[in-house]
């Protein structure tokens, strides 16, 4: 609805205002007359009518900010607001505006959460660990830049599309990972973020069906999300992949993800997200933790490392080597990463080291590594898990 309204207002703030008005009217009218057959279309029409109204007023026309650049050739404001086609097209245009490379990455993610996932400014602020006023200022600054620098509201040309789609996928992936392991708070998973990311990935896949990277990202999110309900126990404790109840993994999501993966891997060379999805698929297909094909996983990490060199990939690869060849080999593979500045404050490096040291019975070193991991952990669920392990290794020392 917001995306369709933007096309009339050519101004993000005004469109948000009109969308808000439409919700308010819906509360009154729907209570009186009942919910219309197509509530989404009803809301969009009301918001767009309100926008047209406001735009007629001279005060609005004299706004000093320049308006969003809308490609009139693609579609005009006279288009019917109903039907999934134009609305999807508007959402696609809006996500390319929100994820424009001329905006800072933080701003891209914040705008996407606010304007495409429908989170409130307060909720976006929580996801970023900043105060609401700070986030409100960041969003305002980004929207002002979109208007003043004339960042277009348009699907990029075929020539620019691959790079621009890459930026959008990175934002959607970041939204997912932020929700998957919440950087703060009581809960491990923020469902509003993970679900928003899956919805966006589905939309992108529907609109760009031939793109292997898009199929790869959607496959990755579905295969990862299939495990969501089993990542914490009923009493809220962290359950590692080794301990999860695999009978409760979402088989429909795994089947859908695996099918998409086949599609994603048909492109040559394979893309980063497709390889990450392939790793998730190996886990999803193993009937038990002991049956996991670590040789296959190590091989996939080698492919991923060549495609997308990144210290976090190296860390995951070292963890997989430790599973394939034993904790001593894993520890040796981790050693060079301790010098990596990008991982200096990355708690999973300490946690992985601590686990290998614990399994080798090197209690004193394990203890200090767990202490380090605990200091860097973000949410309460992860902290509780690490504290428990720390108590264990301290007990074994005595």
């Amino acid at each position: 609805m917001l995306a369709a309204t933007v096309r009339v207002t050519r101004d993000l703030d005004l469109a948000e205002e009109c969308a808000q008005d439409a919700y308010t009217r819906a509360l009154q009218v729907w209570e009186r007359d009942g919910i219309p057959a197509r509530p989404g279309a009803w809301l969009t029409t009301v918001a767009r009518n309100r926008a047209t109204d406001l735009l007629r007023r001279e005060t609005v026309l004299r706004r000093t900010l320049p308006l969003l650049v809308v490609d009139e050739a693609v579609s005009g404001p006279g288009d019917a607001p109903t039907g999934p086609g134009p609305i999807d097209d508007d959402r696609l245009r809006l996500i390319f505006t929100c994820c424009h490379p001329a905006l800072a990455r933080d701003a891209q993610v914040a705008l996407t959460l606010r304007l495409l996932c429908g989170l409130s400014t307060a909720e976006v602020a929580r996801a970023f660990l900043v105060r609401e006023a700070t986030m409100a200022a960041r969003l305002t600054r980004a929207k002002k830049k979109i208007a003043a620098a004339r960042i277009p509201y348009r699907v990029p040309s075929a020539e620019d599309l691959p790079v621009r789609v890459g930026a959008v996928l990175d934002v959607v992936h970041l939204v997912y990972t932020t929700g998957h392991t919440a950087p703060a708070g009581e809960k491990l998973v923020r469902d509003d973020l993970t679900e928003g990311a899956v919805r966006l990935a589905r939309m992108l896949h529907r609109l760009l069906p031939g793109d292997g990277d898009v199929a790869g990202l959607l496959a990755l999110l579905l295969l990862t999300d299939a495990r969501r309900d089993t990542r914490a126990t009923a009493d809220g404790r962290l359950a590692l992949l080794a301990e999860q109840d695999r009978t409760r993994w979402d088989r429909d999501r795994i089947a859908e993800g695996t099918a998409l993966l086949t599609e994603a891997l048909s492109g040559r060379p394979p893309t980063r997200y497709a390889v990450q999805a392939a790793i998730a698929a190996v886990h999803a297909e193993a009937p038990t933790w002991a049956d996991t094909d670590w040789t296959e996983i190590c091989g996939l990490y080698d492919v991923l490392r060549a495609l997308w060199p990144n210290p976090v990939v190296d860390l995951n690869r070292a963890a997989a080597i430790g599973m394939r060849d034993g904790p001593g080999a894993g520890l040796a593979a981790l050693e060079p990463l301790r010098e990596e500045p990008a991982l200096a404050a990355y708690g999973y490096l300490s946690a992985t080291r601590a686990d290998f040291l614990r399994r080798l019975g090197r209690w004193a070193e394990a203890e200090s590594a767990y202490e380090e991991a605990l200091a860097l952990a973000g949410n309460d669920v992860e902290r509780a898990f690490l504290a428990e392990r720390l108590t264990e290794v301290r007990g074994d020392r005595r």
Partner: protein
Amino acid sequence: MARYLILIYGDEQQWDAMTPEQRENHHAAHVAFRDAAGPGVLGGGKLQRTATATSLRAGDGGPVPTDGPFVETKEVLGGYYLMEAPDLDAAIALASRLPEVAASHSGVEIRPLVERN
């Protein structure tokens, strides 16, 4: 349409160190840029070295001129274009053709002008 100022920044010493052949290619690239932009280029120019700059600031007895650029930085302003383009993507596409964007020591800043209608 909107107007953008393209500010060209780079390391002056590296610009000075160009061979005659590099200089010629550089000039040809600017000519090609102007051809590609056509009427989109509203103005532009190459600046003399920062050693020729004079800055003016307020003093007790009125403006005080001092030798040198307003801000001392390693990358200095070396030239500019004033352009007109339908949107930022078009401005980025045009500015990407500038030879300074290809060199490692230089780059451009794209600044929209305030438009009053």
